[in-house]
């Protein structure tokens, strides 16, 4: 009895794991046929990677929050705040050194994350939904305040060093064969960061503790894990990743614009959930999140090639998010059922 159930749940597990990959493959085939000569070009593929980078960086932090059964709704404006910090330091204080601009921007975002964590754990706000939703507005306000609600342009301002990481691309030629052209450096950054996250989540004590706090905070606390500290660190890391994303954004958009954060939070959540994370916490992997983020970028890119406007894009992405959450809920129900059967 028990073994039969286990087999079934393993098969289910496997299907759930490869589902995003399968969908991605189907989309690729579909778009390749429908946008012949437009979708499967080197330039367009590199474009997708470029567009994915910011979501990947934000999504990595979001993943941690989701693993702890939390959420960070402030990510979008936290990233924008980092970009605006760079703009203000450059415009109002004449600072052009990347060695100052980048660390300060990341520090500001990390601080915002620390506040998120502190509100949640020390003021015992009921759910991070509350603290981070409030902080989302606070950070937006701060970004408007420091920029006096004006867009700051970065072109020819002497901060190209800072913008490099979000802007630069490189080619890979092997024996004269053009393997890759215009590969974005920002996506290399993503791969490096994700490698770190993989090691962090699976091979460090704190990483495993994050999963345990997410799976059962009380059991974790009674086993001597400082659940509150772990949660605070999680939101700080999420803030940190927003800071990194903000730096990449500066290079990609060439402006600091408080109006551009619209979909970052939902995109990041969607990437994590599609990648196997659950609102109930306790699970999710960094590579799943990468797949999720790529899936979303691919959909957006495909729609763009249809010259679908923002309207259609919002509708489609919104539906994808709801679908992903439905899958998550169904998955949980199936698991609960498998569990019930296993104990009989």
């Amino acid at each position: 009895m028990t073994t039969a159930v286990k087999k079934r749940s393993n098969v289910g597990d496997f299907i759930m794991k490869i589902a995003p990959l399968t969908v991605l493959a189907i989309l690729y085939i579909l778009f390749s046929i429908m946008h012949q000569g437009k979708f499967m070009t080197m330039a367009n593929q590199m474009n997708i990677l470029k567009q994915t980078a910011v979501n990947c960086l934000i999504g990595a932090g979001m993943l941690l929050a989701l693993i702890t059964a939390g959420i960070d709704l402030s990510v979008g404006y936290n990233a924008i705040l980092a970009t605006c910090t760079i703009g203000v330091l450059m415009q109002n204080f004449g600072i052009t050194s990347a060695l100052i601009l980048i660390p300060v921007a990341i520090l500001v975002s990390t601080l915002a994350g620390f506040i998120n964590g502190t509100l949640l754990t020390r003021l015992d706000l009921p759910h991070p939904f509350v603290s981070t939703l409030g902080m989302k507005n606070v950070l937006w306000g701060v970004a408007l305040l420091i920029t006096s609600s004006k867009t700051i342009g970065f072109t020819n301002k002497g901060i190209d060093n800072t913008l490099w990481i979000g802007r630069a691309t490189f080619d890979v030629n092997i024996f004269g064969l053009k393997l890759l052209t215009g590969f974005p450096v920002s996506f290399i950054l993503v791969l490096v960061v994700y490698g770190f996250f993989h090691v962090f989540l699976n091979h460090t004590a704190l990483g495993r503790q994050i999963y345990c706090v997410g799976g059962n905070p009380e059991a974790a606390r009674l086993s001597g894990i400082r659940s509150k500290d772990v949660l605070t660190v999680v939101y700080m890391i999420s803030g940190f990743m927003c800071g990194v994303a903000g730096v990449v954004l500066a290079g990609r958009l060439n402006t600091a614009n408080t109006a551009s954060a619209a979909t970052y939070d939902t995109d990041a959540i969607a990437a994590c959930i599609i990648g196997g994370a659950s609102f109930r916490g306790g699970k999710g992997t960094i590579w799943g999140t990468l797949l999720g983020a790529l899936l979303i970028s691919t959909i957006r890119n495909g729609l763009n090639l249809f010259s679908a406007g923002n309207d259609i894009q919002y509708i489609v992405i919104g539906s994808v998010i709801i679908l992903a959450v439905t899958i998550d809920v169904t998955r949980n129900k199936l698991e609960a059922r498998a569990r019930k059967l296993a104990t009989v």
Partner: protein
Amino acid sequence: MAEQFVVELKHVTKKFPGVVAMRDMHIQIKPGEIHGLIGENGAGKSTLIKVLTGVYVPEEGEIYVEGRQQVFKNPVQAREAGIACVYQELNIVKMLSVVDNVFMGRRITNKFGLLDYAYMHEEARKALSALGHGTIDTRMECGKLGIGQQQMVEIAKAITQNAKLIIMDEPTSSLGEQEVKQLMDTVRLLKDRGIAILFVSHKLEELFELCDRVTVMRDGEHILTSDISQMTGDSLIEAMVGRTLENQYPKIPTSRGEMALKVENLTQIGAIRDVSFEAYAGEILAFAGLVGAGRTETMRAIFAAEKPDSGKVYVKGKEVSFKNPGEAIRSGLAFLTEDRKGQGLVLSESVKTNLILSNIKNYRKGPLLNHQEINKVSEDNVKTLRIKTPTIEEVVVLLSGGNQQKVVIGKWINSDADIYIFDEPTRGIDVGAKIEVYNVMNRLVSEGKCIIMVSSELPEVLGMADRVIVMREGRIMAEIPRESPHFNQNDIMKAAWGGEIA
């Protein structure tokens, strides 16, 4: 039929996977009688209540209401048949008004299809007056009422539904003295109206004061039903515990070592008061008492799971004041909680992660985890504790209760503690696994560790403990060493029920 019963149960059996919770149970309740129901923790009282209220559907047996056979497939059917229950945890929505609570789940509409509040207020007022509580304003928000009055709202809900039998599950456990008196008056008013009451209580004196008849349950079976006037406190207790000790407790004698833990006047307002005791290396100290006697609260206070309001704790002679469980663990304490799934395990994680949960930082090589070491330790645990699992990577939720418990025990053994607090260590696990748990306890004490075991199973206490402390209502009632003539079920139960040990 010679005598008409309002509710009658015949040969009812309720099984759960691996356990029979109620076997061949029968009970007959007459109209307008107050029928007491007592039994030890786990005797099957809750199961009986849940069968009567349609929460559980029994596998075998018949339920009759006023002579007609009924099959309750869900709580609504039981309610419609006239059986209501006032649970220990009240089903009151505190944000809603009295009248909304009384009529919850029912729609009484006027001719416009809107809720007929005029009628509902009138009915609620009538019901409350019948209970002797006509002064309660039906417009009042329930959360602003005292617990006793909230209980009245629940009872009013039952009588507006024309309940013929009202089950009261430990209704006095959270009431003050005055409120208990009022409740008893109300119960007698209900009796006068011909409503039968099934009164479940842990307090003998209340049963003697209130009930006409009493039924005793033990191990899921009916032991006796008798007029209460025929019974004495001692005879009731004997009926509750009266079983012989089987040889399923492999206790080995050990010698008592140095003092490991000393607790002085530990107090947590509303839960425990002035708890003082000492525990020694190489002994098993048991805590007996009824559910809610403050045993778990005492342990949580020692372990800083909940910070005590006052009192002192000494570990190996040194005073300590833990800020969180982590500090307690570092001082050599381990706390196996009674709620294995809620507080002991991360169910979504693997066996090995759970085994190293309390000391994960000891398995580091530089900044990274040493997976080789972790696997070695986990494999070791699985072998020595005989945890039945396909691999150490298995998610613990898929293990049986006994094996889950062994994982928790393994976690604490790995933390290398000196003082082990085991709160209901064998709850919900089968006999074979129980004996293995006892063997682990034996091994620990023979290694000179100190074990404090909270247990509601008296045979287990008598079988394994070197000394037993009995608690009642947050206080220590008695301390009985194994050599004492009072080290027996009846005397421990007496102390737990508030009696004097002669």
